[in-house]
């Protein structure tokens, strides 16, 4: 009896981890002609869970968010880093089994840094981020309404400048979809075996050193 006659049951091919598919073009395709309710329903469901968790985690509260920016309350970092640890392990495991595709965001040094700093200034002014702002609104923080208006206005302002920005700032330091393990020139699995324990260690130290 030959084992070669047995067919594998996996529907998707196990991807070769030396060559990672980092996800398709970032430009969204124009709206599809067929209307499908499924993404809308799933989006709503995932959104509800997300908002519920954010509120329970305290990050819909103005003073908790300002708390990290004043380096007094580390709740936000604990939430984010735990999510990163669980998500990194979970998603790369699923990816190695061919169950999910990755969606790596592009690295553009100038745009990442300048955009990031501007975001940070706005974050301190409003005291909520886009996700936690929605959660704050649901929690009853009415000032988030004005924040939402600002978020929409700022998005449109960016769109106004997007033609020019695409030809200039967005091009400076464009490194395509660079990943951390590529910077240190390690295979993905080896990198993760070091990276995940490092993140967990940081969380443990943080937990020891902080009251909140």
């Amino acid at each position: 009896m030959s084992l070669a006659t047995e067919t594998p049951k996996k529907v998707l091919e196990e991807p070769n981890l030396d060559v990672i598919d980092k996800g398709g073009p970032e430009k969204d395709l124009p709206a599809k002609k067929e209307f499908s309710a499924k993404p809308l329903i799933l989006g709503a469901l995932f959104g509800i869970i997300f908002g519920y968790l954010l509120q329970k985690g305290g990050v819909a509260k103005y003073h908790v968010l300002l708390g990290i920016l004043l380096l007094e309350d580390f709740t936000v970092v604990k939430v984010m880093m735990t999510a990163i640890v669980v998500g990194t392990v979970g998603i790369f495991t699923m990816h190695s089994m061919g169950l999910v595709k990755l969606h790596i965001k592009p690295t553009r040094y100038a745009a990442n840094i300048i955009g990031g700093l501007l975001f940070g200034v706005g974050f301190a002014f409003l005291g909520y981020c886009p996700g936690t702002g929605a959660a704050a609104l649901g929690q009853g923080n009415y000032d988030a309404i004005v924040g939402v208006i600002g978020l929409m206005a700022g998005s449109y302002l960016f769109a106004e400048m997007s033609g020019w920005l695409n030809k200039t700032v967005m091009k400076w330091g464009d490194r395509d979809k660079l990943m951390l393990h590529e910077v240190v020139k390690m295979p993905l699995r080896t990198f993760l075996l070091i990276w995940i324990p490092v993140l967990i260690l940081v969380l443990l130290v943080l937990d020891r050193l902080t009251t909140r």
Partner: protein
Amino acid sequence: MKSLFLVGLGLSIIPSLLAVVPIGTSVLEYAGPAWSPYVVGALIGVLSMFTFYFSDKPLGASTGYARVAGMIGKLFAPKHTESLKYYQDNQPAVDWEVMVVFGAIVGAFLAAWQGGELTGEWVPAMWAARFGEDSLGLRLGAALLGGMFMAFGARLAGGCTSGHGISGTLQLSVGSWIAVISFFVGGIATAMLMYRI
């Protein structure tokens, strides 16, 4: 890269020093989270796995606002909106990203309602303590400006604290780690100037 790292390190020392000498109310005087941040974080990580698997999308928030802004723009100035590069590449429509934002509002309401934490306030207590009980105008001005800076910055950087800060970083995207660090450098410096000077 090395000089950039050193500059960043130097910049982060100043707010850290300021944090040691608190001027004004301590944030810890106000109530913290209802659940453990580790539990919440772990569940958000699991949620990310779900969005990748079921929706083939990373969790994010800022895109939803950009889409709604685009739809409003198309309502009032359709030709102009359609001529903008960003909206040519990202068609404004009610889709997954927009529903996540709407869902988040509902989910947070349910959580706050269930936990007795509905606030119903225009000015956060900590803001009033710093800027005065009469500071609604200032608060709304800061909120509006803050939202504008954040959305502009998020589009330029390519995501917000959810899109880059969680979804991007967990995929080991270098740009996401750079963006998150920048978010906090900018935010910490600004918050320190607002509350600790």
